[in-house]
């Protein structure tokens, strides 16, 4: 029998979710969109509480209260710089809920489980479990609890692929023999292991792809839950989450010029890169803050290219202060954001927005690149591989073909960098040896503050 009021509530909630995501098309409409989505969620929850067969209330209330308390605390007290970790762990929570609902369904339905239901349950617990541990691994690496460098060992890919096939084999077996509790339990245990193993060899700079992928898996797990308990709003919300993760994964992989498979099985950044042939002997041009001020004073158009180094040095506020000083003098300042700069999609944008940078100054790589030769000064702050011209010119380079921000085409490039160390890919950057490149060594925040002081002197 169909519960019409409940189903109608779910339909409205689904529409509100879609409208909510549509709002994210522009910063102006984004907050209104989120309000739509929040109302949708509230309707779905209240509808469920009133319309479904609820017989005990105490556990629901306890869960809602604890969850709201933790969620609110995390939202209010967590610093913006911890956002990548926060995103990682939230995928783990969402997936955990899906897994538990799946296990519950398995226990409750018992001997009534059909092959069709098992198909849905299997997907749910498989994707859910590997998202839980995979996201926790990503969280550990981002938080610094675990080493963020890729952890690799001999035969790793073989072990991962073997585990994967064993798990899929169990899933297929379960579809034919859905009552086998032992295999069901083993499959969940193995999925947890797979989650750990697939994120283990992935290093810091590949985190944007991992987070996008986990976003997608968490959504798929939710959608599978909808199949298992025959709930349409779950399927719709899950598909939305799944497609957002999918689109982000594509964008991130493209921006790194790598396939999904390569990110998951490649563990780039380890020893396989031969850097000896790429070593440069040419001299570099070092400057100090006074020189930098002199160069910037002459500029009409400045483009700032931030990278993960800016996040590490917490230099976003100093960056904005510098651009304020420049704008005061009539210089046009823009920010060029590479899609994989930082540790998650949109990382640089969030940090700069936190520092009160106007969002219309944040430019995409495709927009800024064609105009790069009219830029007087490009300032690279804590970015390396995403501005490496070898990606355009050197066919032998491991990053050849990766889209980069063409700062080398600007009239002058100022590179703020701690040392001459290589970036995540472990390769030399010919940009640093160009005649128009000036190296300004030191901690980004420190150097920027000195530079701002220099500007304020007169």
């Amino acid at each position: 029998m169909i519960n019409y009021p409940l189903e109608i509530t779910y339909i409205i909630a689904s529409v509100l979710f879609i409208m909510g995501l549509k709002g994210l098309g522009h910063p102006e409409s984004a907050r209104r969109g989120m309000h739509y989505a929040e109302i949708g969620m509230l309707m779905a929850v209240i509808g469920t509480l009133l319309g479904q067969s609820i017989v005990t209330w105490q556990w629901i209330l306890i869960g809602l209260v604890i969850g709201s308390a933790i969620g609110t605390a995390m939202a209010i007290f967590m610093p913006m710089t911890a956002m990548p970790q926060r995103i990682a762990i939230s995928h783990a929570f969402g997936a955990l809920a899906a897994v538990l609902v799946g296990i519950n369904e398995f226990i409750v339905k018992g001997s009534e489980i059909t092959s069709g239901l098992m198909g849905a349950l299997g997907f749910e617990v498989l994707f859910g479990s590997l998202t839980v541990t995979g996201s926790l691994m990503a969280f550990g690496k981002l938080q610094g609890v675990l080493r963020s460098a890729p952890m690799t060992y001999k035969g790793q890919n073989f072990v991962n692929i073997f585990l994967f096939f064993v798990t899929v084999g169990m899933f297929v077996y379960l579809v034919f023999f859905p009552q086998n509790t032992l295999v069901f339990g083993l499959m969940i245990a193995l999925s947890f292991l797979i989650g750990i193993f697939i994120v283990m060899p992935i290093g810091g700079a590949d985190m944007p792809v991992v987070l996008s992928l986990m976003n997608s898996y968490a959504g798929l797990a939710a959608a599978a839950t909808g199949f298992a308990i025959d709930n349409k709003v779950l399927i719709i919300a899950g598909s939305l989450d799944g497609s957002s993760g999918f689109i982000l994964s594509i964008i991130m992989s493209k921006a790194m010029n790598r396939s999904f498979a390569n990110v998951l099985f490649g563990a780039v950044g380890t020893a396989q890169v031969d850097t000896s042939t790429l070593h440069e002997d040419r001299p570099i041009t070092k400057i100090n803050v006074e020189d930098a001020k002199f160069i910037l004073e002459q500029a009409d158009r400045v483009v700032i290219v931030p990278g993960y180094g800016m996040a590490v040095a917490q230099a976003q506020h100093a960056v904005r202060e510098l651009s304020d000083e420049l704008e005061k003098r009539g210089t046009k300042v823009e920010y060029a954001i590479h899609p994989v700069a930082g540790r998650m999609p949109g990382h640089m944008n969030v940090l700069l927005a936190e520092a009160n940078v106007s969002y219309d100054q944040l430019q995409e790589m495709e927009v800024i690149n064609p105009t790069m030769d009219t830029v007087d000064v490009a300032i690279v702050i804590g970015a390396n591989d995403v501005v490496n011209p070898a990606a355009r010119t050197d066919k032998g380079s491991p990053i050849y073909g990766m889209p980069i921000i063409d700062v080398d085409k600007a009239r002058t490039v100022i590179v703020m960098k701690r040392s001459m160390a290589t970036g995540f890919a472990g390769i030399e950057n010919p940009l640093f040896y160009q005649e128009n490149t000036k190296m300004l060594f030191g901690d980004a925040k420190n150097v920027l503050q000195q530079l701002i002081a220099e500007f304020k002197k007169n």
Partner: protein
Amino acid sequence: MLFESFYILILAGFVGFEVIKRVTPTLHTPLMSATNAISGISLVGSLVAAGSDHFVSQMLGLVAVTAATINVVGGFMITERMLKMFKRKKRKQQ
């Protein structure tokens, strides 16, 4: 019934793809946290489990409700906190 669900999955995935394709890259982080909050809709399934008369279900449901609520409440709040930061500066020259 299962097939009906497939229709919904495919169509919702398609709508999601078309809508999310148009999300500005500037808002990719809020997008992730928003979709994450929305997929906290597993809360709906968790509530039913926690509210049943079966003790094991209640316990599994309790943990699931807690986890999903963290995502829904925390996810929406943090998304709003981020979106509040995206402002357009008024400039004198323009």
